[in-house]
């Protein structure tokens, strides 16, 4: 009898489980992959004379909410540098010297480390010196790289803001008027319009979201370590006139970064598409054999400071023999349920209602990690027959072959016409299958 019940339960729970597991991995999740941006931005400066330079602003700069009103570069008696500008406090100034980004040829500095000042409570109209470079002697022949980023070290390379956008095409290599001995090239990352002087800053976007890191794998060699982060994202509130990139994954790893500096972080923009996806985070660095710890956090850069994050995991990984030999992922917190308006109330004689609310929450509201057990079950069978035939097949199908002799071409009006039709046909197929499946189920003589 028990055996019968167990086998019978398989007929009911398998389809429900598998539908709930696999549906998030279909096309909607795949659409996220194409939106992930990776690149870098940088600045090269080599002061040779004491001078006062004002860096031109580009009205094509992409990045909102972090409006830069003006930038003034000042050399201080030839041995120092002050970089001052007015900006939105959400803008994050970063710098690197001799290490870290390593994207600039010839990057070198004298001894010492510049002091980084992260602006707080700075109005748009205020001028704020972010970096005081007096602590480091930057003489001729030495170059310093400075990077200011609204969101990401690894951002779109074509969103550069340059010394002269009209002639430089946002890239110093194409800027005929750019003089590396006295000019400063600053590149900003972002995805929304830059406001020139005199314009009203855009609406500071507000985003509320539920997140969770689902899984992570670490691979690679001593020169590049790849973090593949599976995450779930659900934006529940979004208000912005332009910005679409306010949610980030930040990787902060000790052992090869100085975790006391903002510059040690690697920030990666996430699109505001809901669903489950994977973010590949390559970290280029020369790793020695040893143990490392990476902290991967979800941030909302508009409402959360660097001291608060929604979800985070800790990844321990080891490098032996020049390759990643092992890793372990531990979830610390997750952001699921933080915006569900489910909060425990004060329970006291003066607030009996709060006790009732707490009792109801305890009784009916499940914990955030209640579905972890389903993920565990799925993980144990995803590579087993017959389920693996589906996962392996879909994995192979998702690999595009550049040598394909057949291309269907771009379908016109895909979003407007064919996507709704496809969703409708897919729904009809599923409903029809459920109808025939259940009707057949009742006819089976058990």
């Amino acid at each position, binding site marked *: 009898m028990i*055996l019968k019940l*167990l*086998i019978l*339960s*398989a*007929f009911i*729970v*398998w*389809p429900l*489980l*598998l*539908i709930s597991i*696999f549906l998030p991995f*279909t*096309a909607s999740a795949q659409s996220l992959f194409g939106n992930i941006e990776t690149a870098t931005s940088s600045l090269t400066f080599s002061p040779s004379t004491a001078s006062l330079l004002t860096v031109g602003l580009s009205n094509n700069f992409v990045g909102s909410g972090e409006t830069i009103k003006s930038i003034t570069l000042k050399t201080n008696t030839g041995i120092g540098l002050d970089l001052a500008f007015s900006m939105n406090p959400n803008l994050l100034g970063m710098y690197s010297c001799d290490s870290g980004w390593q994207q600039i040829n010839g990057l070198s500095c004298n001894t010492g480390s510049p002091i980084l000042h992260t602006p707080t409570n700075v109005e748009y109209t205020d001028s704020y010196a972010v970096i005081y470079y007096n602590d480091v002697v930057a003489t001729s022949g030495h170059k310093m790289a400075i990077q200011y980023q609204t969101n990401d070290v690894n951002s779109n390379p074509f969103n550069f803001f340059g010394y002269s956008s009209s002639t430089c095409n946002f890239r110093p290599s194409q800027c005929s008027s750019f003089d590396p001995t006295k000019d400063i090239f600053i590149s900003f990352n972002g995805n929304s319009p830059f406001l020139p002087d005199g314009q009203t800053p855009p609406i500071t976007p507000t985003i509320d979201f539920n997140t969770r890191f689902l899984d992570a794998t670490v691979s690679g060699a001593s020169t590049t370590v790849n973090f593949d982060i599976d995450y779930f994202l659900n934006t529940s509130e979004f208000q912005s006139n332009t910005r679409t990139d306010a949610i980030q994954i930040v990787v902060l790893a000790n052992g090869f970064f100085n975790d006391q500096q903002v510059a040690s972080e690697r920030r990666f923009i996430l699109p505001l598409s809901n669903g489950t996806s994977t973010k590949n985070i390559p970290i280029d660095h020369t790793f020695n054999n040893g143990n490392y710890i990476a902290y991967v956090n979800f941030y909302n850069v508009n409402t959360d400071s660097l001291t608060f994050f929604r979800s985070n995991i800790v990844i321990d990984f080891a490098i032996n023999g020049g390759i990643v030999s092992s890793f372990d992922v531990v979830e610390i917190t997750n952001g699921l349920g933080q915006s569900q308006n489910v909060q425990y109330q004060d329970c006291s004689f003066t607030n009996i209602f709060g006790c009732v609310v707490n009792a109801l929450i*305890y*009784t*009916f*509201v*499940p*914990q955030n990690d*209640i*579905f972890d*057990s*389903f993920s565990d*079950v799925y993980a*144990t*069978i995803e*590579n*087993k*027959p*017959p*389920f*693996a*035939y*589906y996962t*392996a*097949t879909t994995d*192979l*199908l998702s*690999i*595009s072959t550049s040598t*394909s*002799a*057949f*291309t*269907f*071409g771009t*379908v016109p009006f*895909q979003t407007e016409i*064919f996507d709704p*039709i*496809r969703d409708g*046909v*897919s729904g009809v*197929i599923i409903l029809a*299958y459920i109808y025939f*499946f259940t009707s057949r189920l009742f006819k*089976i003589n*058990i």
Partner: protein
Amino acid sequence: MIWEFIINSIAFALRVVTTPITLLNDVTLPSEITNGIAIISPYYSSLNPILPIDTILFLITVVEIPFLVGLGVYFVIRWIYQKLPFLN
């Protein structure tokens, strides 16, 4: 509390039901199959945005085949069960 009990019960039942499957070896597709999938992959990628091939594939391979296999296993076990001489 209530939902946790229900969900945990379902998860436990699933774990029990799927335990025999976990004893099987991992699937490694034959090279002929992988080559075949690689050949049809561009056709799939081109047609899938219009026709929900992934939905059909999912229903067949994840729901229908496991259901039929499970049903067949059930009938086999029932047949063996009925043939045991010491049971009525």
